[in-house]
């Protein structure tokens, strides 16, 4: 579904990462853990068609992603909601860009479905200034889902949230991904988040950065573990150990 092929990118001729390659199938979430500045966001931006790679390419169903694609959704670290539009209009903005009329039945239905998916139907007429951090991030997710993507790129979407809200959103995301069979890439600096959400986990390290894929934890195909499972905490410990070893 989504293939990163020998991807190299940098700024001002200095490579940030080099020769990164992996693939993500439908229903999988590929979690990449890395420290700030290692190029995680640049990698996702390249997949979103917002950053040109110096070498290599990102392919969706065999087609290179060179510009933003309607079926590839990016959920940024900061929700970036437009304060002058209501929640409903923020969610539907991608449809307006695609030429779907704001008063059409299709527009209204798709915005309703996206808001329903994130449990925010009741906030449709509210302005972003009156949303909590968790609600704003849910709106950001709905804005991506409204375009019905089959690839989801998650750029540390929960990093600015408090622990309780973060865990609630992680649970919702697990349900959403399994329902919709999306291919997803998550970049994060949280080992617990990567282990909880990721069906596969890789560590991004080095200068320029490379990827080290770790063995999957037990039962990852079913996404069945909870945060108090021993298997989960043990796998977090294992990933932490490998992360420490790779970063010296």
């Amino acid at each position, binding site marked *: 579904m989504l293939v990163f092929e020998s991807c190299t990118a940098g700024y001002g001729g200095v490579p940030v990462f080099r020769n990164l390659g992996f693939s993500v199938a439908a229903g999988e979430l590929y979690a990449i853990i890395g420290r700030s500045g290692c190029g995680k966001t640049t990698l996702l931006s390249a997949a*979103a*068609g*917002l950053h040109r790679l110096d070498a290599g390419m990102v392919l969706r169903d065999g087609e290179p992603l060179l510009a*933003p*694609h*309607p079926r590839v959704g*990016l959920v*940024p670290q*900061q929700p*970036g909601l*437009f*304060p*002058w*539009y209501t929640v409903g209009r923020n969610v539907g*903005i*991608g449809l*307006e*860009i*695609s030429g779907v009329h704001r008063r059409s039945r299709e527009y209204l239905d798709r915005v309703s479905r996206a808001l329903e998916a994130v449990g925010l139907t009741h906030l449709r*007429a509210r*302005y*972003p*200034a009156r949303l909590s951090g968790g609600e704003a991030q849910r709106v950001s997710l709905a*804005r991506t889902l409204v*375009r019905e993507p089959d690839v989801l790129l998650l750029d540390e979407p929960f990093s600015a949230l408090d622990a309780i809200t973060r865990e609630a959103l992680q649970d919702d995301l697990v349900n959403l991904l399994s329902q919709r069979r999306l291919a997803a890439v998550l970049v994060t600096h949280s080992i617990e988040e990567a282990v909880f959400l990721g069906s596969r986990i890789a560590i991004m390290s080095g200068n320029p950065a490379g990827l080290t894929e770790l063995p999957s934890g037990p039962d990852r195909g079913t996404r069945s573990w909870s945060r108090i499972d021993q298997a989960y905490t043990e796998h977090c410990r294992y990933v932490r150990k490998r992360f420490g070893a790779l970063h010296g």
Partner: protein
Amino acid sequence: MADPRRPIARRIGNLGSGAAIIVGVWWILALVMSNRVLPPPDVVFARVLELFPTPLVAHAQASLARVLKAVGLATVCALPLGILLGRNRVADSILSPAAYLMYPVPKIALLPIVFLLLGVGEAARVGIVTLVLFFQMLFVVRDAARAVPASYVKVLTGLGGRPVHTVRFVVLPAVLPAILTGLRIGIGTALAVLFFAETFFTRYGLGFFIIDSWSKVAYIDMMAGIVALSIVGIALFTIVDLLESVFVRH
């Protein structure tokens, strides 16, 4: 959704208390000075009622029409240019220095040139007020367009937005409050310039009415004209506030 009537009701209350203070001070000054140059408010208000609707309404209409035309023209010119300067570094580096040098030039000093270039009709009076408003609005729009967070543009681009979408969905809504601020700041200066411009080559407008009354030593009429001009200014400010409460809800 904010109820636009609430701010208006509060504003009317505030205007009422402000007007009471001004009239009170005016009354005291009129009593203390006891000079026919400064007639007391009751006499002036009675004269305003006598001059209403004829001829005061015709003069007020002429002034208001000139200001509104100037507001429209200044907005049409300053909005796209301000957005261009705010969002395009090349255009900004070429054009902003010239605009920066022109900004502090008192536009009223350009009145003779405007009369010579545009003739002595309406175009010149609207033109000089447009000049005043244009520079006020140009800089606030440019600064607001420049201050649009890059994250908003990135979000829109990620959703497939092209530059035209960025302007429509991000830049225009972001600069709208700045346009209204520019108007609010500019209206006071624009009325002062209009007042002066209406003293030449016209028989309509509150500027003409005030100066004409002054030259006839009709001080009560002169004060009535000043009151009418103040009402026009307050009406324009209120329109801007109303637009803000309707369009800037966030």
